[in-house]
């Protein structure tokens, strides 16, 4: 398995996203199962990205591969362009980090020799070797800082990288001069260690962003990224969403999401529009009726004439709203940058002042320069550079272990400040999917339940799937059925022990329900409803305890919202359009409040982008997940207060880290200005302060509990 066989030039590669893979067992099942499919040359899983890369015969289509994986019990979908792996932020930093680590260790070894008394020719030799290792290593590892500092300076600004770059370049230059004239001190060790620590901080920061992004991308749910198109001669072809054109006819099976807006030309069905509008009750649309992209076909297959696709659809309108809403948030300045805004000028002034001071005192150009560099190196924001990323990485790692994924560090910073929360109803406070009535299921005799499970397992209809999941979870086993037939729009029928049995749509009634019909027995009606997420009430109580005032904002009708508002004891606003939601957030933020938006639907997208911080459940629409700062997995809403509490704890640690780093500077800087800092002292002081900051941040390991 370790050696990849020479790739056959006749094969092509397909990458499938398989969100449900999470362990070695899944990996083996997928790889071995796919290898058994004829036409597949090789399959290799990437577990971090939840993807499988398949080399196969060009005759084999992606749809066939998805089917093959479906038989193995894994839902998957071809990776679209939007999910191509984003450029890794860690990758370019790793070589720099490795070189800095290697060079710092070797130069430090030589420096230990010098500090313990190497003299004369030996010291000169050691200095030369240090220079030989140090100068190329500094040039190579320092590039990320030099590039960033240069681009800031060119635009007449300054950032954290400017003092770092100046310090590093000056220290290297002076060390070279000292080496050349056979002087007593060289700063190669301190400079390299500075770069090493700073790069470590950067790499951690980048690693967090990479990991979270991979996790969010992996969460792709079965949103339609294409449609089955019916040609003029009745031929079927799978067309990706971005290639759909007005006038095409797409066939949408029950349980599928629409990829484009359109009008129904054949058939009629109920559609769940909750993702688009927040409305929970499915609506019946017949021939000629308009349906929108993102809605879920619940009942029967229909043919839809595409009227608008891509940029013209109702989805695109929401995307435009989101773009406008997200602009407010982009003005947020991260805490590290805010700190460096004051820090960088202070450091420069201090170093320059000590240079001028010593010149006036008559110390001579050389000694004054040495002292100024000592000030620069000792004040270089080593601990400051580590203070924020280390704390945020550890906290987001802790959150990830409990199923909360933080997309980037600034999300934690913003989440820590919120004092108001707006929650969407459908799909956020509730599960957003039909759940069979627990009382009705409990009333079923064992034998009947096993028949129901067997029937439901033969259909891909959303209600059947929900029923099958609930019955299997209750420990029932499927009965053996003969002669199973599924009639689209009607239900599943079969023979069981000589009796006709059927799971079909009820004869009357508007709500979501299914009828279980066994010959000789009364028809049993199983009602389905959207339920509150588990732990909703404890989660809301905890939010209140954190001082956060929560309320509901939903696009659903007044009565549906009132029902949930009563159950949760919250104030609710109903029939809110995406614009209303953004407006509600803006009103509160103008009042000086920081608002957290929790939502999942497409209609929440603009609000998620506009709020100070936002959280979406893992079942949210692609738009919702992309707009949110934080995505939580699983059903329980307790993840929301948990994330808020972890964010606040993280920021408390970050502030402590800042205090520690600044406190250390307050002690060390006077010594440096007076000219008492030797390279040994600088190296020791620098590592101690960094280690203290890391140690303090490690207390966040249990932050998410």
């Amino acid at each position, binding site marked *: 398995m370790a050696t990849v066989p020479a790739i056959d030039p006749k094969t092509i590669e397909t990458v499938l996203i398989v969100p449900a893979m999470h362990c070695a067992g899944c*990996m083996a099942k997928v790889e071995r199962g796919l290898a058994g499919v004829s036409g597949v040359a090789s399959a290799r899983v990437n577990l971090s990205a939840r993807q499988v890369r398949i080399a196969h015969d060009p005759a084999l289509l992606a749809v066939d591969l998805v089917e093959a994986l479906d038989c193995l019990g894994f839902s998957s979908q071809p990776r679209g362009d939007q999910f191509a792996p984003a450029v890794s932020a860690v990758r370019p930093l790793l070589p720099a980090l490795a070189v800095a680590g290697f060079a710092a260790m070797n130069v430090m070894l030589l420096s230990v020799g010098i500090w313990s008394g190497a003299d004369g020719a030996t010291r000169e030799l050691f200095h030369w070797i240090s220079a030989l290792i140090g100068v190329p290593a500094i040039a190579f590892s320092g590039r990320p800082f030099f590039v960033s500092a240069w681009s800031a300076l060119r635009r007449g600004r300054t950032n954290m990288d400017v003092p770092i770059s100046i310090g590093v370049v000056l220290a290297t230059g002076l060390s070279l001069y000292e080496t050349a004239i056979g002087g007593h001190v060289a700063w190669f060790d301190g400079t390299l260690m500075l770069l090493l620590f700073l790069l470590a901080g950067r790499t951690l920061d980048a690693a967090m962003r990479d990991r979270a992004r991979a996790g969010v991308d992996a969460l792709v749910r079965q949103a339609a990224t294409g449609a089955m198109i019916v040609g003029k001669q009745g031929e079927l072809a799978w067309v990706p969403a971005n290639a759909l054109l007005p006038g095409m006819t797409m066939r949408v099976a029950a349980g599928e999401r629409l990829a484009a807006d359109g009008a129904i030309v054949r058939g009629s069905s109920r559609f769940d529009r909750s993702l688009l509008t927040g409305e929970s009750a499915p609506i019946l649309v017949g021939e000629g009726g308009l349906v929108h992209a993102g809605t879920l076909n619940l009942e029967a297959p229909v043919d839809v004439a595409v009227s608008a696709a891509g940029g013209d659809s109702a989805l695109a309108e929401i995307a435009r709203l989101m773009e406008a809403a997200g602009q407010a948030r982009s003005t947020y300045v991260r805490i590290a940058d805010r700190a460096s805004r004051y820090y960088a000028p202070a450091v420069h002034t201090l170093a320059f002042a000590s240079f001028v001071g010593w010149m006036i005192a008559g110390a001579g150009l050389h000694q004054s320069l040495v002292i100024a560099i000592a000030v620069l190196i000792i004040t270089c924001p080593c601990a400051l550079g580590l203070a924020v990323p280390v704390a945020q990485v550890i906290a987001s790692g802790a959150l990830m272990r409990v199923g909360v994924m933080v997309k980037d560090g600034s999300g934690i910073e913003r989440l820590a400040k919120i004092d108001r929360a707006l929650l969407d109803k459908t799909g956020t406070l509730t599960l957003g999917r039909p759940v069979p009535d627990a009382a009705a299921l409990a009333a079923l005799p064992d034998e009947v339940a096993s028949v129901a499970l067997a029937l439901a397992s033969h259909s891909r209809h959303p209600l059947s799937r929900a029923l099958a999941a609930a019955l299997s979870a209750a420990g029932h086993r499927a009965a053996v059925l003969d002669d199973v037939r599924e009639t689209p729009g009607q239900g599943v029928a079969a023979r069981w022990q000589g009796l006709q049995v059927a799971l079909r749509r009820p004869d009357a009634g508007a709500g979501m329900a299914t009828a279980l019909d066994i010959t000789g027995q009364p028809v049993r009606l199983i009602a389905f409803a959207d339920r509150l997420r588990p732990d909703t009430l404890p989660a809301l109580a905890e939010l209140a305890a954190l001082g956060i005032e929560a309320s509901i904002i939903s696009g659903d009708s007044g009565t549906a919202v009132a029902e949930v508002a009563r159950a949760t004891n919250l104030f609710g606003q109903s029939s809110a359009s995406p614009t209303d939601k953004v407006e509600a957030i803006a009103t509160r933020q103008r009042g000086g409040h920081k608002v957290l938006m929790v939502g999942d639907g497409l209609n929440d997208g603009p609000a998620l982008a506009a709020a100070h911080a936002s959280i979406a459940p893992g079942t949210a629409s692609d738009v919702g997940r992309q707009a949110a700062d934080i995505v939580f997995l699983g059903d329980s809403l307790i993840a929301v207060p948990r994330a808020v509490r972890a964010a606040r704890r993280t920021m408390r640690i970050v502030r402590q880290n800042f205090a520690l780093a600044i406190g250390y500077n307050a002690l060390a800087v006077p010594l440096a200005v007076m000219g008492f800092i030797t390279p040994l002292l600088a190296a020791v002081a620098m590592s101690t302060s960094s280690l203290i900051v890391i140690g303090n941040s490690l207390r966040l390991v249990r932050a998410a509990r």
Partner: protein
Amino acid sequence: MSSLGITIPIALFMGLLSLAAFFWALRSDQFEDLDGAANRILLDDDEAI
């Protein structure tokens, strides 16, 4: 002091060797799927593929 002439080059050579090994690993995509690598050791290679 003559021992330095041998030990320092040896130390540097070994350091460079590990640096080269790291770069080789980076080039050959060994850091692409860390979760997968951690889980792969649990797979039984004996099972028929």
